[in-house]
């Protein structure tokens, strides 16, 4: 309850900060990917940690997702990640996914851009299917195809995506237990990020602090059921190369069965430019 109250307060405070200043942000979102591509020939390494409260139990689900990303060209990137979690009591490997993104539209101006990209993910998971929510990032086997547009205006970044998801049976004979119609869903997201510090850039070694709000929604095509989440994230970027994202994700409204929609998120990331 205390956590809930704090989150709502933080979300309100952050909304106020965003709305009260006219122009200033960043787009390195934690819950969604922006339309901008990675630098060509760069490698990024991520360790994502989710610490989620299981509903109606005192259990905490810990998900560990290490990820490697590569910028193949200025318009195309690929990434692969591996899913580990303790949801089925033992902490163990549960699956993996391959993600790719292609930026097909780019309009740059000084301190501004508009970019649009298409993305896709193929996921494999061998855990039991335990919720109606379809989640390609550590829960379901299946695929996701989508489009994302990102607008940067000085220090503020706005990003919106929509994607189609299709779940199939999970591995280890874990069947998709709902009807085939309910195996399809649409995700739609809206993210806003703002560069808070430094007020003025002096060098690459300065620590940058970004604040982000992300609205994450899903509608199941078969059942029409939905969920709406909000995530608040504080991000620190060190030496213009590494970052830590700390966030809290909270279900705002839902008619879908979900086991653990609320919890903390911590991402550690470092990037190697001109790596290959």
């Amino acid at each position: 309850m205390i956590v809930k109250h704090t989150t709502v307060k933080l979300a309100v405070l952050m909304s106020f900060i965003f709305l009260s200043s006219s122009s200033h942000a960043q787009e390195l979102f934690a819950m969604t990917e922006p339309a901008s591509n990675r630098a060509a020939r760069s490698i990024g390494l991520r360790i994502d940690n989710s610490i989620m409260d299981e509903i109606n139990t005192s259990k905490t689900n810990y998900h560990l997702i290490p990820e490697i990303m590569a910028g193949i060209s200025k318009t195309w990137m690929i990434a692969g990640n591996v899913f580990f979690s303790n949801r089925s009591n033992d902490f163990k490997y549960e699956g993996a996914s391959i993600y790719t993104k292609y930026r097909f539209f780019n309009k740059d101006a000084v301190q501004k851009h508009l970019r649009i990209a298409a993305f896709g993910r193929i996921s494999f998971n061998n855990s039991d299917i335990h919720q109606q929510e379809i989640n390609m990032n550590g829960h379901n086997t299946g695929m996701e195809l989508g489009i994302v547009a990102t607008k940067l205006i000085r220090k503020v970044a706005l990003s919106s995506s929509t994607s189609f998801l299709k779940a199939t049976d999970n591995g280890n004979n874990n069947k998709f237990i709902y009807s085939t119609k309910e195996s399809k869903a649409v995700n739609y997201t809206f993210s806003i990020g703002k560069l808070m510090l430094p007020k003025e850039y002096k060098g690459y070694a300065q620590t940058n602090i970004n604040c982000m709000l992300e609205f994450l929604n899903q509608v199941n095509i078969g059942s029409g059921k939905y969920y709406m989440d909000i995530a608040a994230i504080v991000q620190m970027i060190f030496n213009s190369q590494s970052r830590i994202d700390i966030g809290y994700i909270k279900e705002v409204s839902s008619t879908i069965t979900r086991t653990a929609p609320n919890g903390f998120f911590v991402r550690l990331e470092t990037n190697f430019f001109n790596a290959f």
Partner: protein
Amino acid sequence: MKLSFIIIAIVFSLTTKAQITKVYLTASGLTCSMCSNSINKALKTLDFVEVVKGDVKTYTFELSFKANSHVDFDKIKRKVEDAGFSVSSFTAFVDFSNVQVIDNKPVKIGDHSFLFANLKEPLLNGVKAVKILNRGFVSQREYKQISSPAVAIGIYYATI
């Protein structure tokens, strides 16, 4: 005959290569220092570049070059684009010594041929800031406003 031709070619290239002293470019499409750093690091990988000084505040990069190296403007531009951004301004500092521009024809300076727009003086001397106006060297908006002539590949449309 062949040998003398090669010698002339070498002498010509030596005397002209050293004439581009610096390049200042501004990148667009970014505000974050991580983005700027990716450009900075990409430019440093060019074999003819000696030093890159990136200004994270103005998104401007100052490049100086190794002696007798082949400075390639297109490679510089490509590095910025590969990092995920665009060049919105590209100015080369060129040291001219008695270069005569005749009838608005392209002049070869070092490894580059320039077609100068609105040149006030046909005789060029000393270090001049040469702003490149080709597509990809200015912002998309500025390029639309410039009525640049159709220049052959390898020729840079420029102003001083």
